[in-house]
């Protein structure tokens, strides 16, 4: 039996498959390994932040700082690798510590000062972007040979598509994220917070450490995403990834996670990401949309997905009410 709570996940999956089929019927070349590989590679950094964002949203919060943290990470790495002789791996570890601590600090502010996540992370967004500017306004390229090694790690398909390392990192992040969310105590606490902070507290959930942990995870994954983005572009640029937080939120929501918290799946966000990527790809394949129609169509498709999801959820709850409204009586 399919659990009713899995429904949004299934809806998202079906939507993706359906949309892909429609696209492929119009542009047969979309049905190639190359396009699949591109979807994974090009959305790798977005996918990784979306995992963190899923945790945050599941807990009923929001993190607007991730886009800026990615940019900061990139600039930080580029500057460190340019100005010092640190090995990239050391730099990676360093930056992950910094971004995780940054996330944890935001979580602590949210919890201990009782301030809304929206505002705290908004300030965090300004701060991280500002810090990136202060490090370097110019785009700094990264030319370390270790980067070349990492970038040359890919698996090439016959048609010329490349499954790159960063795509695998994203998939791995999703798997680990899903395990943590659905199989560990921490994950359960995240859902508990999303179900109701007051009740969670009365049930003995360690609200402080969970909140701090959630934003630390989000910050750390934004850092990881920044590393991936720096591999993707071999550079650090303080103006990069503006507005990525909104893309990530949209992907998570399309993936069936409720913004009010408590309901959703990490895997859903994966399909959310793929759907967003598909929209981009389709628009490029079409190639006739002007700049403004591109925006309108993206907005329209976003709306269509939300509506579709809403409709399916309505339909299913109506059916559920009729069928199992008094489950305990039978």
């Amino acid at each position, binding site marked *: 039996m399919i659990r009713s709570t899995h429904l949004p996940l299934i809806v998202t999956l079906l939507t993706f498959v359906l949309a892909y089929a429609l696209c492929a019927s119009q542009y047969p070349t979309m049905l190639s390994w190359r396009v699949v590989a591109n979807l994974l590679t090009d959305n790798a950094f977005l996918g990784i932040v979306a995992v963190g964002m899923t945790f945050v949203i599941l807990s009923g919060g929001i993190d607007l700082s991730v886009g800026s943290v990615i940019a900061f990470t990139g600039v930080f790495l580029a500057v460190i690798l340019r100005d010092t002789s640190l090995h990239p791996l050391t730099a990676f570890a360093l930056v992950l510590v910094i971004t995780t601590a940054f996330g944890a600090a935001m979580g602590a502010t949210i919890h201990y000062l009782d301030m809304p996540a929206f505002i705290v992370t908004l300030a965090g967004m300004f701060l991280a972007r500002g810090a990136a500017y202060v490090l370097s306004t110019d785009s700094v390229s990264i030319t370390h040979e270790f980067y070349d090694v990492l970038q040359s790690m890919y698996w090439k398909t016959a048609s010329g598509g490349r499954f790159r390392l960063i795509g695998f990192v994203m998939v791995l992040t999703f798997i680990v994220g899903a395990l943590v969310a659905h199989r560990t105590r921490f994950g359960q606490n995240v859902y508990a917070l999303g179900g109701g902070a007051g009740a969670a507290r009365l049930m003995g959930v360690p609200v402080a450490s969970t909140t701090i942990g959630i934003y630390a995870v989000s910050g750390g994954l934004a850092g990881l995403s920044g590393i991936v983005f720096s591999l993707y572009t071999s550079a650090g640029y303080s103006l990069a990834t503006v507005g990525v937080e909104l893309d990530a939120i949209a992907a998570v*929501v399309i993936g069936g996670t409720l913004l009010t918290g408590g309901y959703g799946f990490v895997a859903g966000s994966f399909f959310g990401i793929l759907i967003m990527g598909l929209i981009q790809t389709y628009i490029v394949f079409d190639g006739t949309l002007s700049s403004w129609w591109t*925006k309108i169509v993206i907005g329209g498709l976003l709306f269509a997905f939300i509506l579709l999801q809403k409709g399916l959820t309505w339909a299913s709850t109506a059916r559920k009410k009729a069928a199992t409204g008094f489950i305990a009586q039978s």
Partner: protein
Amino acid sequence: MTRSPFLKRITPQLIILAIVLLLNVLVLPDFFTVKFQNGRLFGNIIDVLNRGAPTALLCVGMTLVIATKGIDLSVGAVMAIAGATAASLVVEGQHWTTAVMGALAVGALCGAWNGILVAFLRIQPIVATLVLMVAGRGIAQLITEGTILTFLDQGLIHLGAGTVLGIPTPILIWLSLGSFAAFLVRRTALGLLIESIGINEASSRLAGINSRVLLLCVYVVSGIGAAVAGVIVTADIQGADANNAGLWLELDAILAVVIGGNSLLGGKFSIVASLLGAMIIQSVNSVILLSGMPPEFNLVIKALLILAILVIQSPKVSHIIYILRASTPPAKVDRPNPAKELKR
């Protein structure tokens, strides 16, 4: 010591505004100097009032939306659409009043769209308005075809760059609309009803409040406010810049509301405090501009100042202040005390 509840409510904002203005004076000693020059008042403080107009106009509607537990991310895009509409109408040769009416109508329509998604389709406000935030700028560009649509209609330009009795028109517009809105919600029952649906919509509906229509109206007000702001910025530069008009201004508006001490979780609100919040933000911007620091520091300074303001205002910190001030327990009064002797 009897202070009116209203004054008490806005005291923190007044204090913070005073502090930030003081910072301005520190970086530019003649900050408060106002001259009458070229037929208009001329001075930094006038600039703060004038440049704060768009945020102030946005935060009137945003305050109401947030009071209902919602949020409106689309206001920046609606500004662009309204500005483009007004500009294209005067370029077509319409009278400027028609153009303004057209822009307001478009703003109301955008608000109604958001309102329908939120109130009737029950889509979460942040996602519902995200749709228009993404698509709206595209719609605005569709109207201007990506160019900056310039015009020379003096009537329209007057709204953004003109003066009345030497006072820049935008100041008069936001002051009058802001105080009208603040007056309206408090002198009618609107404020009570809006707060009520923001705190508990189910209860409010059962108490006979038409919560859906009220929600819709709140988003329409937000749309209209955004349209006025859009007309002002368009008129100010004598051209509709669909790409940049109101870009990221929704965040400033939300910040203003929060600095105004309103909870993002809905409920009790104060429009006046939000307006003060808008002025606080503009004063922060002013410090940054006047300080002469290199622009790469702009964001860091802004982030730190805002963070400081928010921390001072956070409920926990104000609670600690409250406790420090009143460290004595409340006096035992006005409760019919039980016969303590029964205890024995």
